[in-house]
């Protein structure tokens, strides 16, 4: 039979990975499975699963080379997974006689090992049939790492604790380590995309990848992720503003020139019907002194809406609401128009650290000055500034008897703060509300305001499920309709009712943090789901005061308890403690990588490897004991080792004769030596004796020495691993 005919009868060669590549894949798979199973399974189950991975990989390889149809393999893998559930449960339900502990371990081991077996057979079979499925293997590995550290998402920088605590206490930022894990996971998972490559190409590519990864890491290690944060639809963050701008609806309404834009002015009634799915900290406030708010709520104001645009209240022009600071301080302290009267207030200095970009500074109401601060940790905070706020110190009953609008106000200003929709129902309703007031207080603005507030609190129902956004006047639709709505409705309704009674009022936007959900201490963590709108009224001799409505009826779940540890970690970072309060000594040196020991270890390992390689080389080259057959074989192998050292390697699928013919120009005697070896191997009667074989081997060496330059021969002598490639 000639060569062509022989090839014609051969089965198709199935491209499968070489065993070293398969072993590397097993290692990566094993590491991934350990990560997946660590929180779920016992040690025994993890060990069994790793073993099952090895079996599964070999089974998949076997099925592929034996041309088992893919659907059949997948069905078998599926049955294996099914068996995992059945067998695991059966072991638990049946009296095995091993005792409860051993039964549990056994059930766990059987379940997870069968699960791993089915999964690996399916994945590997798919991957071997089409390379595109190898990407699933990559995703499986990267997913294992992501799953292990999933707790840190949404700026929960204190999770997972096993990493976070260790990293912080050693002066390392866990976010940097997490990024490193992501990079390493991708690099390791690339093994899954390999098939058959030359070792040299593999090493060269690996080095290039390491260089790319190192450059990337240097660039990205200090990057902070600007997450899109939902602030109850109020649009308090920069990103929300950009998103609304992208939709072409952003900017100022009406003809007002606005100042700084910022809040969701296009339609504050267009808010989601539920609280944000993702709760993230948006800012940290650090009080310089002890302070607790009178009403139990900290109000961090960002913007106020006082101009009526025919539909709702929007930011007024730049000459109005000058008591609100709308710009971040750059180099100098910014002061607000002094409308707050000092005698009625307590001065509260705070430091604010924003974790999410906001278009305007947040500050505890009512801020009177904002000064620049050095950002202590740019990886976590987008900006930092100091604030001095005047918070109301007098009791509300002492406000009684005061008027709202001072005589000193210009008619335009007065008209501005009393503007309301052209709807007589506001006035009619507010008149009804204040009608029942004690005649002594019938003309008292504060008392009227309290009556309106009380009315809304008793009659209103707080819910996100109705937003009245399609109504011509959503506030009227809420107030004279179902009275079901959320903070924006209550704030607008209250403001319009106040204004209808001649009380200057406006709506403030920001965050309201309930003191009862805090953990104490001088740090207040502000979460995005605390975004809020509330009314403010002006009282002569006091200034603007927060006049929030607290509906008695609500279908909202109670607020989430703030994570103490996160609040503490962020607070410590804000105080410039690099260890986030985790180390006994905040000034202790960060953990240093023992590069010297690593290098030493590397050198020792390299030396050991070289010593072993040279030992094997010498042993294979010099050993000449055993039967005549073995000796001739060793002579032949030693000659091939020598050729391997020089880089002349027999290719896969190349016969010995063809290999000898290929090197005929270099060493004509190699063909003779090969024939001699084959004669020995097939027991030919005409085989040469050992002396002739030795002579042929010597001849080959002499020819190589004659035909190759000295440098190449020296390189061959130095090469420690030429024997590895001998086939």
């Amino acid at each position: 039979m000639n060569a062509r005919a022989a090839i014609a009868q051969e089965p198709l060669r199935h491209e499968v990975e070489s065993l070293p590549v398969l072993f590397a894949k097993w290692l990566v798979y094993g590491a991934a499975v350990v990560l997946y199973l660590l929180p779920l399974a016992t040690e025994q189950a993890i060990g069994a699963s790793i073993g099952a991975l090895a079996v599964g990989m070999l089974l998949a390889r076997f099925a592929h080379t034996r041309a088992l149809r893919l659907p059949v393999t997948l069905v078998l893998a599926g049955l294996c997974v099914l068996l995992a559930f059945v067998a695991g449960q059966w072991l638990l339900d049946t009296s095995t006689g091993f005792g409860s502990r051993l039964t549990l371990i056994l059930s766990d081991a059987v379940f997870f090992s069968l699960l791993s077996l089915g999964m690996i057979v399916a994945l590997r079979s798919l991957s071997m049939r089409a390379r595109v499925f190898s990407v699933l293997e990559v995703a499986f590995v990267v997913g294992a790492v992501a799953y292990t550290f999933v707790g840190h998402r949404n700026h929960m920088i204190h999770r997972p604790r096993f990493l976070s605590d260790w990293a912080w206490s050693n002066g390392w930022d866990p976010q940097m380590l997490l990024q490193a894990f992501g990079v390493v996971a991708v690099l390791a998972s690339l093994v899954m995309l390999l098939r058959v490559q030359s070792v040299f190409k593999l090493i060269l590519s690996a080095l290039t990848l390491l260089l790319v990864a190192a450059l990337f890491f240097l660039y990205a290690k200090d990057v902070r992720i600007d997450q899109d944060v939902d602030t109850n639809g109020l649009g308090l963050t920069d990103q929300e503003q950009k998103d609304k701008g992208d939709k072409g609806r952003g900017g100022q309404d009406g003809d007002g020139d606005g100042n700084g834009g910022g809040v969701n002015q296009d339609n504050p009634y267009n808010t989601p019907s539920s609280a944000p799915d993702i709760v993230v900290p948006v800012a940290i406030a650090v009080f310089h002194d002890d302070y607790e708010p009178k009403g139990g709520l900290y109000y961090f104001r960002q913007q106020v809406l006082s101009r009526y645009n025919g539909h709702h209240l929007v930011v007024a022009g730049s000459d109005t609401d000058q008591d609100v600071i709308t710009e971040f301080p750059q180099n100098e302290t910014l002061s607000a128009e002094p409308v707050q009267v000092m005698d009625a207030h307590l001065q509260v200095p705070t430091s604010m650290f924003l974790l999410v970009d906001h278009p305007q500074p947040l500050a505890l109401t009512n801020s009177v000055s904002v000064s620049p601060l050095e950002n202590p940790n740019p990886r976590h905070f987008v900006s930092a500034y100091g604030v001095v706020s005047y918070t109301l110190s007098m009791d509300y009953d002492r406000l009684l008897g005061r008027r709202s609008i001072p005589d000193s106000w210009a008619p335009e200003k007065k008209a501005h703060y009393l503007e309301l929709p052209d709807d007589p129902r506001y006035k009619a309703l507010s008149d009804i509300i204040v009608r029942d007031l004690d005649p002594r207080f019938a003309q008292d603005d504060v008392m009227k305001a309290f009556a309106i507030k009380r009315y809304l609190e008793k009659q209103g129902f707080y819910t996100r499920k109705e937003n009245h956004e399609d109504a011509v006047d959503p506030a009227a639709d809420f107030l004279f309709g179902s009275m079901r709505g959320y903070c924006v409705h209550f704030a607008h309704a209250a403001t319009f009712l106040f204004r209808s009674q001649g009380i200057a009022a406006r709506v403030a936007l920001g965050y309201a943090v309930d003191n009862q959900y805090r953990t104490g201490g001088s740090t207040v963590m502000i979460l995005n789901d605390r975004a809020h709108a509330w009314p403010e009224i002006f009282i002569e001799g006091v200034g603007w005061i927060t006049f929030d409505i607290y509906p008695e009826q609500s279908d909202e779940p109670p607020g989430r308890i703030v994570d103490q540890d996160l609040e503490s970690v962020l607070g410590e970072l804000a105080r410039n403690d690099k260890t986030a309060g985790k180390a006994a000594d905040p000034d202790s040196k960060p953990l240093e990588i023992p590069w010297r020991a690593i290098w030493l270890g590397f050198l020792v390992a390299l030396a050991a490897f070289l010593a072993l390689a040279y030992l094997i080389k010498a042993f294979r080259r010099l050993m000449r004991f055993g039967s005549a057959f073995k000796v001739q074989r060793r002579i032949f192998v030693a000659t091939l080792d020598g050729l391997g050292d020089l880089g002349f390697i027999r290719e896969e699928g190349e016969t010995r004769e063809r290999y000898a013919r290929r090197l005929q120009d270099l060493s004509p005697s190699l063909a003779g030596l090969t024939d001699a070896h084959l004669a020995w191997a097939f027991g030919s009667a005409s085989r040469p004796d050992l002396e002739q074989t030795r002579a042929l081997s010597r001849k080959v060496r002499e020819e190589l020495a004659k035909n190759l330059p000295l440098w190449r021969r020296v390189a061959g002598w130095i090469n420690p691993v030429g024997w590895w490639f001998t086939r």
Partner: protein
Amino acid sequence: MLLEVAEPVWGFFPLSLAGLMAFSLGYAAFVFFGKAESDYVLYAAGLIAMGIVAVDLFFVFLGFLWLLFSIRHRADEQPLEGQLDAGTELATGFSLPTFVLWPFVEASMKWKQPHNVEVRLVSKGWRRRELITPTERGRIQEIRRTFKVHDIFGIASISFSKRWPAALRIAPQLSLLEAAIALRDTSGDGYSHPSGKEEGELIEMRRYSPGDPLRLVLWKTFARTRRLLVRKPERAIAPQRSTMAFLVAGRADEASASTARTFLERGLLGPEFTFSADGAHSTFKTPRESVEAIIDSAHYRHDGGKGLNILIADMDLAAPGNCILFVPSSLGDWFDRVADFSRRTPQPPTLIIGVDGVLHEAKATVARRVLRRSTTATQRLSSLPALYDKLASLGGPIHIVHRPSGKLIGPVDIDALRAL
């Protein structure tokens, strides 16, 4: 069809399906988890995955440019000339860069036109030399090589084609001689006499005398008549020494062409023969001309059997000699023309079919068919019984030569194949 048309454009799209998926997953991880949920692991993983795809693409694109540059000047080279047999390897002198010092990048090449050429690249120094092995006969006037620059991860690849002029004459591979000899001997009662004519099937008998070799005894005759007779060469009064032969071209005719060439070059058609093949405009009397006709017939597979008219015009219908038709191993339009030819000749021609494929295959049970996919590179012989039955209806003798083994496939083998 659509893919074939789009291939030149699609080939320049540098991302493979795996690359697209890797990039998409990386992007999804980066945007939907990294950015949307501040997942630092997936942020970095997604970004580095996209980065690796980009770097990979960059190197593959550079490799593509380098390959383009390194083969550009070869487009104007002298045409590749040569004469070789199908199944034999030829070093064309064309070579590719090895990309040995390039990270990620590898290059491969195959012949797109003609497609029936296997290409092997053997490294030598910094280049990889091209070795070709044609699998079918024919004349090649133009080569279209398809190059593919890709990465080791299967993420990126760019492929393109380039044409070169050529003048290659590829003769069909010679079949093994055993089958032809066995075929020659099938019409006798055992072995032909050593001193007999090459045709061998015409014999005379005489009584056995002591000293005659036992292998010349006609044992069947002895069994019938109890008389010991031995064979001796016939002394024919009007021996039919002339043989007319024809190669019918068609799909899967390469093995038959090989057999025809073997018959011609080994003299198995006798000292006097007339040969023709599809595509030829006349008949030929010499093996050299006949083999050229066989080579040319590769380009007339769509008109298989049309050339039989030339043969019949050359045939003496009053005193016909042996007539042999080498027919393809796959049914086609040629069958009706052969049937027509068979009706027009005084006696049906001998049909010889060359086949490739797995001769001894385990019975494909239902379970085997369901569980395992096809693994053989060559054709299966499962359709052979149908062809055999169809040709048998013409009434002439049929001989099937298994090219890889050189064995004859007889009726028993056909029945065995029928049972598979």
